[in-house]
């Protein structure tokens, strides 16, 4: 708590206490309500900018269309679905509608109910058994490795580990293999190479989320899709997809949903080349985590006019390579007069499907996967990295090119500030991750000895209270499946504190804590008053917590939280290195 904020609380309280509400306020309010009740319509009409259309807003159409789509879905689904989807869709604020009124719904809307069928599926033992028994039952022969891209992938059985585990499947016909990258396979049987709309296509993807309507037409969108990958209801409703068939069953020995869709005539249009100017046409989903860092989206699935798409969404538990529990989605596309082909795909490719995520393999450890971090002092490209440098295994997405400023036992520091052309020393972001041994008292803030951090590692409040810190925000969120505290802080820039190892332009600049088992003679964990600091305190069992500090201009915080924090995976609890 800083002197300033102490004074603000005290003096604002004094000011507010000067207001003495009238004793008859309740009666006055009741009278005013009664007065309003006499002429409510008059006020509305007078305030309406267009008296001919007093209730028509831009929000009306999407709501009505969404409601219609939901109603259609509700009438056609094979398996019963959660009834909560309707109200969620209609209640969701439309961000495109300007509205000066207070929007209490943003605060009061309940957490969307998870779709129990999707998020926590109850396996159908019969279906699963049947599929497992049928798996590999085709005549595709011994699975082969997939060929190189842009070559023919012939009918037969194949295996690949590109999707975060061992995937085996069978094809009943020849295709051209168009894409074969991490978390993504795409094969097309096009009569003409440049005419793919209406052609048969099959894709396999691990997806991190379904795209919202805005994301689905944004060529430059590169983050994870905002809609939970198991929340099929929301995606179908938001994109106003016409659903002609939907069922729940099994695939690859797991619970799976299947849905047949085509875009409604009023759906959005993507303006990128992949859709070739057809309308409506839009991106379906975002690939799993290893792809986030790309500047442009990878080849992903689209749904487009002139095609019908059938999607099988296979539930994945545990940790796959770089994909966590993201579902496996198989999408088949063809022309509207060829939908019987979906039955063939189901009878061959889906029935033959087998998938073993790495975590499912008997005796396997979590083995979080990702790129190896480059050496300290060098640059790390955007991508997914994995390391056990902090004792506990961790994998995370680095969203931007960063300098590895520090990489040693229990401590990792990444900074973008010196990377051209987009960043500058004051505009960049610093991301520091460490196993946190403790917080420093005010008396210890300039003490470089590694044990000068006597406040318990979980006692961030004690540190705030004693070190001239303004608490801007304080939340609890889930990080890597662990309930974690997040605080935004501003250090009092007038403090006269400066440690010798910190540049003068960062003053005030002082030690805030210590790294666990620090084997150096000088502490490295310091903060500056020149930027806002965000701390994530992630518990690691009974051991030292993982502390993630993000420092930089405001615009970086949400991006880092969406990517690095949102995609963070941690292995089993483990002590810091050296314990």
């Amino acid at each position, binding site marked *: 708590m800083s002197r*300033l*904020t102490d*004074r*603000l*609380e*005290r*003096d*604002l*309280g*004094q*000011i*507010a*206490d*000067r*207001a*003495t*509400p*009238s004793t008859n*306020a*309740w009666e*006055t*309010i009741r009278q*005013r*309500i009664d007065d*309003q009740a006499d002429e*409510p319509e008059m006020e509305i009409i007078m305030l309406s900018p267009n008296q001919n259309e007093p209730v028509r807003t831009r929000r009306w159409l999407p709501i009505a269309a969404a409601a219609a789509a939901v109603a259609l879905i509700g009438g056609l689904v094979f398996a019963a679905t959660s009834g909560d989807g309707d109200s969620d869709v209609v209640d969701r604020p439309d961000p495109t509608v300007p509205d*000066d*009124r*207070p*929007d*209490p719904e*943003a*605060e*009061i*809307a*309940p957490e969307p109910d998870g779709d129990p069928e999707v998020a926590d599926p109850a396996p159908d033992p019969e279906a699963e058994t049947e599929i497992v028994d049928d798996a590999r039952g085709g005549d595709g022969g011994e699975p082969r490795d997939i060929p190189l891209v842009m070559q023919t992938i012939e009918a037969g059985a194949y295996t690949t580990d590109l999707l975060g585990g061992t995937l085996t499947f069978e094809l009943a016909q020849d295709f051209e293999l168009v894409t074969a990258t991490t978390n993504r396979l795409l094969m097309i049987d096009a009569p003409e190479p440049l005419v793919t709309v209406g052609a048969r296509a099959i894709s396999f993807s691990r997806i991190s989320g379904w795209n919202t309507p805005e994301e689905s037409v944004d060529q430059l969108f590169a983050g994870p899709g905002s809609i939970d990958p198991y929340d099929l209801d929301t995606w179908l409703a938001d994109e106003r997809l016409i659903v002609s068939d939907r069922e729940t069953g099994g695939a690859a020995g797991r619970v799976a949903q299947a849905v047949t869709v085509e875009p409604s005539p009023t759906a959005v249009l993507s303006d990128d080349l992949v859709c070739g100017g057809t309308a409506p046409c839009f991106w379906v989903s975002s690939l799993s985590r290893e792809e986030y860092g790309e500047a442009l989206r990878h080849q992903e699935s689209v749904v487009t006019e002139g095609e019908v798409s059938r999607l099988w969404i296979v539930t994945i538990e545990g940790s796959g390579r770089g994909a966590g529990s993201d579902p496996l989605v198989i999408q088949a596309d063809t022309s509207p007069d060829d939908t019987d082909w979906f039955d063939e795909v189901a009878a061959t490719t889906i029935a033959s499907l087998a998938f073993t995520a790495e975590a499912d393999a008997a005796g396997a450890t979590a083995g979080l996967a990702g790129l190896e971090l480059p050496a300290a002092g060098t640059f790390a490209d955007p991508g997914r990295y994995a390391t056990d440098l902090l004792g506990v295994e961790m994998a995370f997405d680095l969203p931007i090119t960063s300098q590895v400023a520090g990489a040693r036992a229990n401590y990792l520091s990444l900074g973008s500030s010196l990377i051209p052309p987009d960043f500058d020393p004051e505009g960049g972001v610093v991301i520091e991750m460490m196993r946190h041994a403790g917080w420093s008292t005010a008396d210890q803030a300039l003490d470089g000895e590694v044990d000068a951090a006597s406040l318990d590692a979980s006692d961030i409040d004690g540190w705030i209270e004693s070190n001239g810190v*303004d608490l*801007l*925000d*304080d*939340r609890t969120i889930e990080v890597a499946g662990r309930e974690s505290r997040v605080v*935004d802080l*501003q250090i*009092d*820039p*007038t403090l006269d504190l400066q440690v010798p190892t910190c540049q003068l332009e960062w003053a005030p600049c002082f030690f805030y804590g210590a790294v666990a088992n620090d084997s150096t003679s000088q502490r490295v964990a310091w903060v500056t008053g020149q930027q*806002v600091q965000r701390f994530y305190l992630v518990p690691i069992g009974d051991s030292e917590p993982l502390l993630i500090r993000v420092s930089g201009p*405001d*615009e970086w*915080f*949400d991006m880092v939280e969406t990517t690095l924090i949102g995609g963070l995976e941690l292995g089993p609890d483990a002590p810091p290195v050296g314990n």
Partner: protein
Amino acid sequence: MGKVRTTSEPAGFADTGTVLERLFQTEYTGMVRLAFTLVGSTAEAEDLVQDSFVEVSRRLHEIRKPGAYLRSAVVSRCRSALRRRRVMAMHPPEPPAGLASEAGELWDVLAELSEDQRIVVVLRYYGGYRASEIAQIVDQPAATVRSHLRRGLAALREELTT
């Protein structure tokens, strides 16, 4: 901290009159004082808060957390009042009588802040709300609120310490 923040949410009461009366009992004085720190007049603050209660009563059937709605409505009306005052080039009100000198100085410096900065500073350090909560009250992104808060604090720090 938490001087006007209440955890009670009278949503769920069956009778709208009861809901409104309960809301009045839990929120009215705090809301008037919050509004007073922004507009500087008890009469105007009461008028704005009472207006907000009228709006809540009119929309009670469609809002699920009347307390949250009321707070947004009060702040929105205070913002409008501040804007009207600026448009009419009116001078800020005199500090309330009887204030200690430091509180009087704060009053004057607060009046120099932008309307956004003033609102978030008051909500944070009088209301006790976190930035993410303020974001919902003022209907702005949390990052924007943090920015207003940081700049407001910087201005206050400069003015109050020189």
